[in-house]
């Protein structure tokens, strides 16, 4: 049994196996795996006794339910009006330059993915971004480099324990 199958079974036990439990289960898988593979979606369909197409249709509707493999830390830069006015592109360039990836890509070591997203609700502290569930506001290129450096440091320290 793949570990993800077990995860899905546990999530179904926890939330229930009805159609209205689908979203929490999808979210649970994304939280652990960072994305929904085709395999996960079929497994969820099996567990909840739903057509796999329904699970796929629902999952792909939501922008936070990724269905492509993502890095450990997903960076989402707000691109809506105020953040855009207050220098979002400079933040984006600083990140692209630092991580050597473009929007939509993942670093080869699988640590960071870079995405843009719609209004995060921090227009009064623009520009803003999310790194997984953590919010960072009033960004400047310097500040964003510091933030990502701290994640890299954390990753290096954590990595030695993981292996």
């Amino acid at each position, binding site marked *: 049994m793949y570990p993800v199958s077990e995860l899905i079974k546990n999530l179904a036990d926890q939330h229930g196996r009805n159609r209205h439990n689908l*979203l929490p289960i999808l979210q649970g898988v994304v939280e652990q795996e960072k994305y929904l593979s085709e395999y996960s979606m079929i497994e969820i369909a099996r567990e909840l006794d739903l057509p796999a197409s329904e699970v796929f249709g629902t999952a792909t*509707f939501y922008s936070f339910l990724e269905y492509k493999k993502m890095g450990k830390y997903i960076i989402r830069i707000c691109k809506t009006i105020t953040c855009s*006015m207050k220098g979002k592109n400079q933040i984006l360039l600083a990140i692209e330059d630092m991580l050597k990836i473009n929007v939509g890509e993942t670093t080869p070591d699988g640590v960071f993915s870079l995405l843009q997203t719609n209004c995060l609700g921090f227009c009064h502290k623009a520009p803003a971004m999310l790194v997984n569930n953590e919010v960072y506001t009033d960004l400047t290129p310097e500040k964003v480099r510091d933030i990502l450096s701290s994640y890299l440091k954390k990753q290096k320290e954590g990595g030695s324990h993981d292996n």
Partner: protein
Amino acid sequence: MTISYQLKRADFIFKNQNDWEDVLSKSIKRTPQDLINELISSELKGRGGAGFPTGLKWKLTSEITDSIKYVICNADEGEPGTFKDREILSMVPFKVLTGMAVCGHVIGAKEGYIYLRGEYFFLFPELNKVIREFEYYCKEINFDFTIRIFMGSGAYICGEETALFESMEGKRGEPRNKPPFPSNYGYMGKPTVINNVETLAHTYTIFKYGAKRFYDLGVQYSRGSKLFSVSGDTPKPGIYELELGMSLADFVEEFGDGDTKAVQVGGASGFLVPRKRFNETAIGFQGKLVGISLPTGGSMMLFNSSRSMFNVLDNYLEFFREESCGQCTPCRVGCQQLLKGIKAVKRGEKNTKYLDKLLRLTETMKLTAKCGLGQSVANSFSSIVENFREEMIY
């Protein structure tokens, strides 16, 4: 033609919530009819933007006979330029929970849900703790009401009430046809009251101080205070509680940077008001104010003369194109064509009359789109194109 109403600050929403146990236990001893009357006489209207009378909403749902009903707090705050609901949920969550529980008492619901947008997941642990404490007290006073948080996953359209129900039912967040309305057929097909976070927080004020205290604020048709999310080109961005009915000129006087060219009232789905209209525009619900009165979910974005209105519109349209759920053609194709269209005009690939064609397209969307998203694209599009036509062209 000037509006005489001055900008007046109010301070109810973020005032202390420490007496919530008192407000809750006293309120649930009153009859549902009594509470509904109190709400109706306060003239509180929904603070999410649409402005439906809250008392009437509760009344309609209370009149339906069903053993299962739901109370849902809409915390899917996704309108660009709005960030007040998050602040309410983190500063005074007990007011919102109390509002939900009293609503449960009024309509006969035992279950409440908070639909929290995925972007606000960081609120979850703290809010969950608060809910536990709240439920514990409910049990203590023998009041049967539970509240659960349902997390969204990054879809603006799920703020539309019927799309929100679909999402909670584990489906794509595609709006339903109305009628039937949520008061008859809501979450799981059951009678449901769905209120914005701020609306519920205002019910707390009303149940605590009485309807008059609330009614005395604001102007005719637009009673009470409202939280405003102020952003853009302003020296003091942030959240402010103001009485409804102020003129936009007064607002700009207070929050502008001296060079304000236009204000977007109500977010991307709202209206852009150019400087020449500041004096004749009031912020409140449609009514008999002099000039135009604009409803708003509280989003106020200021633009100064360094901003290009083409870029502003381009940004909104890209937003709508991505957030359109795609189920109805006018909205799905309309948003794409509008975005393509203004770019083509800007580049000179289409002549300027094409803008009038696009304006007609927004009229079609207004008439034929299934939900508020597609219908309201016309608001920002026409108010920007009509007032800043020259900026669209070259």
